[in-house]
């Protein structure tokens, strides 16, 4: 149908307004200006409607952990298979026999133990777990629980988040298998939490650096822009976007955000990190600390990071059961407490209200056999954990009974004979649904007709 002139003009206005919002907020983030300051400027220059549109976030931020090389088995000690934990069987791979209890009020069964994080959250905001995918012993590049209809789920998430401005949209820490999806940005790699800080730091802005003085930083930015205009092709439409990005980077160079991102002793104390904390767990905690700060400042939307990758076959033979899960609980609790306590600089909302956590691994090991904790799993199943912040029904979809084969779930969420591929599709679509804040239209290009509302998560409130 032909569009009316009014419709065309409205669409052009919306397109222009969208571009103005996007570049204003990205430039503000690059220059270290609080998003609220940018919104104030937008309100004065472009009206309240534009400012409100800029403030509303259509998607959540995301931190995803990949526990390769058998590390996901640790997650079964934090958020265990309900029937395995409740069976009170000393042969099972549950480190607290007799100490598991049902979490009251969750949509599906969820069980906690003494080392289960986030126990104080409301039932609707507890963990969701999907029995899905396939055992992939051993690999760091988990794919069976990271693919949605042929697309890398991390790329899909980044594509959904593409409209949300940030300095570095996706950060990949260590060896993680990020791949782009249509509309997603490239990931920026770094090695660890310190590297994450340095992404938003520059040598030039540090002591004795070239741009340590703000006057020099301003001169540098202005002269960079002037010099680029002398590049003959800089005005070409196919090059403008790159030069605009680079111009933001030139302005960013003189801002030193490391002091605001760096891990402090007080941070570590909140996360229970001390001299007795295992090195790998301390690294996880430090990454969590920096992630919260980066989210608060709107510097990034998505962080992919490794979990433990220690292939814990000997876990139950030593004292790991009294050390590792409690230390993990401390860092996870510190993380959630920080997300709840800190507010987004722009929206004023708690960070936890616009955040999704997810985790997967290559194998969860055999939860019903602690002797040598073998890598095999019933029906070759795997698991995806998602904290959807209330956007998904809490509890387990699918179950591993105390005896017999694992059960999967069907498109309605009900128990069904296990099918790794089908359950993985539904689980991935559910993760995307949570990121998209229950907007099924937004995820439809990737979900290809999978229905999540009222099956795996509450419907969007219109």
């Amino acid at each position: 149908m032909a569009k009316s002139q009014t419709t065309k003009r409205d669409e052009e206005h919306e397109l222009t307004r969208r571009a103005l919002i996007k570049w204003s907020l990205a430039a503000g983030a690059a220059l270290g200006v609080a998003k609220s300051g940018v919104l104030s400027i937008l309100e004065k220059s472009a009206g309240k409607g534009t400012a409100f549109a800029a403030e509303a976030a259509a998607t959540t931020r995301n931190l995803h952990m990949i526990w390769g090389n058998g590390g996901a088995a640790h997650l079964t000690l934090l958020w265990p298979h309900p029937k395995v934990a409740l069976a009170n069987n000393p042969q099972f791979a549950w480190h607290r026999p007799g100490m598991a209890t049902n979490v009251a009020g969750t949509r599906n069964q969820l069980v906690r133990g003494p080392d289960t994080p986030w126990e104080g959250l409301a039932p609707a905001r507890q963990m969701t777990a999907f029995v899905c995918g396939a055992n992939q012993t051993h690999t760091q590049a988990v794919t069976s629980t990271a693919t949605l209809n042929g697309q890398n789920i991390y790329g899909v998430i980044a594509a959904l988040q593409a409209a949300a401005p940030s300095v570095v949209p996706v950060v990949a820490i260590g060896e993680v298998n990020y791949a782009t999806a249509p509309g997603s940005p490239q990931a920026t790699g770094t090695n660890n939490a310190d590297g994450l800080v340095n992404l938003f730091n520059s040598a030039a802005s540090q002591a004795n650096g070239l741009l340590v003085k703000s006057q020099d930083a301003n001169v540098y930015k202005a002269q960079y822009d002037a010099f680029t205009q002398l590049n003959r092709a800089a005005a070409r439409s196919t090059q403008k976007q790159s030069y605009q990005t680079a111009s933001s980077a030139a302005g960013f160079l003189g801002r030193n955000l490391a002091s605001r991102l760096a891990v402090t002793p007080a941070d570590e104390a909140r996360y229970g990190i001390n001299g007795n904390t295992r090195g790998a767990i301390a690294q996880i905690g430090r990454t969590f600390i920096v992630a919260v700060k980066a989210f608060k400042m709107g510097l990034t939307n998505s962080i992919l990071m490794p979990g433990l990758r220690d292939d814990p076959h000997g876990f139950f033979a030593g004292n790991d059961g009294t050390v590792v899960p409690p230390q993990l609980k401390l860092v996870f609790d510190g993380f959630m407490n920080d997300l709840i306590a800190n507010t987004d600089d722009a929206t004023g909302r708690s960070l936890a209200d616009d955040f999704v956590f997810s985790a997967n691994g290559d194998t969860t090991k055999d939860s019903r056999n602690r002797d040598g904790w073998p890598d095999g799993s019933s029906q070759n199943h795997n698991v995806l954990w998602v904290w959807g912040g209330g956007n998904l029904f809490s509890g387990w979809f699918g179950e591993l009974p105390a005896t017999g084969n694992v059960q999967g779930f069907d498109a309605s969420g009900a128990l069904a004979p296990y099918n790794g591929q089908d359950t993985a599709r539904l689980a991935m679509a559910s993760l995307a649904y949570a990121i998209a804040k229950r907007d099924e239209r937004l995820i439809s290009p990737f979900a290809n007709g999978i229905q999540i509302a009222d099956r795996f998560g509450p419907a969007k409130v219109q």
Partner: protein
Amino acid sequence: MTRLTLTTFLVASLAAACTGEVEGTTPEPDNKPPEGSTTGDEETTYDHENNFDPWVIIDRLAKEGPARYTSRVHSCPKPRYRTLGNVLRSLGVNVDNQTALSAGRLYRDGGPAMGEPNFANRIRENLSVTTSGASREFDIWAAAAPEIMTALGAGTLPRCPGVTLFDGNTCREDGITCLIGTPATAQHITYCNTTVSSATQDPANPDHGKRLAVAAMLAAAYTCE
């Protein structure tokens, strides 16, 4: 009943029997689709690609132009990681420098931020200019400015032997040309001189403005490959 009337009646009856028609109704088609379905299906209609955001495409068309134009015009990929290293060496920068915050150290540590390839994990080099990548590259140029000025001052660079960058505090055309790799214009010289004079003046660091100019020129020249 006349013979003609009887014949007409018999022919009409025969026709009705053959077609199954009852006067006043239309026949049921043999190929009626199932209840609730459409006439076409995946086998008979074009399967449109729907895995994209149309607003992104409209946005790109509005900014860049149609494909028949953009396919004939250069874009702006970022300098390859290895290429950047070669350029740094050609300008007299010690890429193997171990000193913290030196240009060489920033270059060697900045691969992930600049999107270097990771062939072991089958990840190709990032081609786009990103904020993090450009920030790191510009940081390298800022750190490399003193080394480059020293090399140019000594007149020993293979790419432009005997060329110097400054006459006192005034920028030289041949020096700028050597630096950026393309013929310098009068505007290049003007902007370079402006940068030198606009920087903060530090008696303990008299070359500060010149370093700022070198860093800005190199960043602008090597934004795109």
